[in-house]
């Protein structure tokens, strides 16, 4: 059986600990009031999306943020490096021979954004740097098929194929002369 003195001391100690815990949480919260926080969280707050007051746009994102993919088909060589490295196999490239032996007609360049995991590997391997991540992040669509983005020049008809083959052969014949 403990003495009255011990009980009173215990009681006072508990009161002290309660007050201390209240004050600790108060002073932990205080820096947040003045936005003085350490590290990357500085002045970062949760805000409504889309927020018309702060009116943040896609351009306000960090420079290296990875949004939806974009391929500049005029610079694309159709080398299929992106297709090969893609871990989720979401890029489909189909090439045709063009009017010159050195030029490739990129007929199909489809990216299935529903499978893309935004790893950025395809952008890294792209030698002509035609494939880039935009800052666009609003990719919602009603149907999965709408998530397939096509950058290709389109398939060519059999007539065009024979015509282009003829042009190509004519040029080769000129060069060999």
């Amino acid at each position, binding site marked *: 059986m403990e003495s009255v003195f011990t009980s009173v001391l215990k009681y006072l100690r508990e*009161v002290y600990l*309660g007050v201390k815990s*209240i004050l600790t*949480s*108060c002073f*932990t*919260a*205080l820096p*947040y*009031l003045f*936005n003085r926080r350490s590290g990357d*969280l500085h002045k*970062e*707050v*949760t*805000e409504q999306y889309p927020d018309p*007051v*702060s009116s943040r746009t896609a351009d306000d994102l960090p420079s290296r943020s990875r949004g939806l993919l974009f391929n500049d088909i005029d610079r694309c060589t159709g080398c299929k490096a992106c297709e090969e490295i893609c871990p989720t196999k979401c890029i489909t490239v189909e090439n045709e021979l063009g009017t010159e032996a050195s030029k490739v007609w990129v007929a199909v360049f489809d990216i299935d954004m529903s499978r893309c995991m935004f790893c950025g590997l395809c952008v890294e391997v792209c030698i002509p740097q035609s494939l880039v991540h935009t800052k666009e992040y609003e990719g919602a669509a009603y149907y999965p098929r709408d998530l397939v983005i096509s950058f290709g020049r389109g398939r060519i008809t059999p007539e065009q194929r024979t015509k282009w083959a003829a042009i190509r052969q004519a040029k080769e014949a000129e060069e060999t002369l």
Partner: protein
Amino acid sequence: MKPWMSAWDGLDVFPAGTPEWAVAASIVGFVYFFVIMPGAGFMAFLDRKISADLQARIGPNRVGLAGLFQPLADLLKLLQKEKRIVSGWREAFWLGLHTMALYSTVAVLPLGSMFLLVDTDMSAFMLFWAALILALGTMLMGLNQGSIPGWFGGIRVASQALAGAFPAMIGMICVGLRAGSFRWSAVAAAQGSSPLHWTVFSDPFQFIAFFVFLASGMVLLGISPLDGGLSVPDIHGGVSSHLYGRRLSLFRLGRFYGFFLWSEIAVVLFMGAWNLPLFVTDAIRNYSTPVALEAVELLVLLVKTGLVMLGVTWVARANPRIRADQITDMAWKVLSPLSLMALIGTTVWMIWVNH
């Protein structure tokens, strides 16, 4: 002119021969519409902004400059809510009781050396009447709802009011011991304008008594962080579970009024009331009217009250809310013994140290 009304005789803003009841009614109306209602809106805004900052959110930022008019927009929204229940005698009874409680307790508020509507030997005790009427009205409203959250909420409100009243009363008696009276003017005169002459810093036991008084008031009126009687997760807001629209805005105004009343009384009792430095008082007396002096005093009092309210809000938003049974437990087992300790300590201090 009755003797207890002589304090605001010097205001002379009313023409001679104005009946006493008209003077009293206009003062109460002035306080209600120009002090309490804008104060409620502004404090609601500050509360939301500060709690947003503490939780790394933005808070209201749409209406007006930095969302300053958000409370007004909320009020307008609440006022145009459609009625769900046909109003009957219950609503009329509750509205009547609540309004009566609000208006009658404005009369006991001390708001400056000349703005004392009721300045008698037991003025300070009247705040218990005010606070208990507010608690009683809230309890009756809960019991009137005819729903389980209402019944439980009403009982919780009553138990919190009973638990908080005892330590609050003892804390107030500590001030009475020092001032030698419970008259508002005497309590104010016992303190000075400098914090060194405030009751709260006059001795260590008054310091304890101040915090006990403030905390037990929060218990008594069920003000956040000690508002377990109105908690949402277990009893759906208790007495406020069925309120919406006009009635909700009235209820919120009443809750704010309780908070304001208690902080304001705590400032008057412990934190130097409306006292200005003597040279300031003299300067205003010599170069301006008594009304200007009263206005400055009221401003000082309101600023101090606002700071106390912000402090309570800070504690409330940074700490988790505790259950209703833990609140009454704390009031009986911690606040009450501490208040008695403060009372005994103050008595001993006054006899052995001050003399």
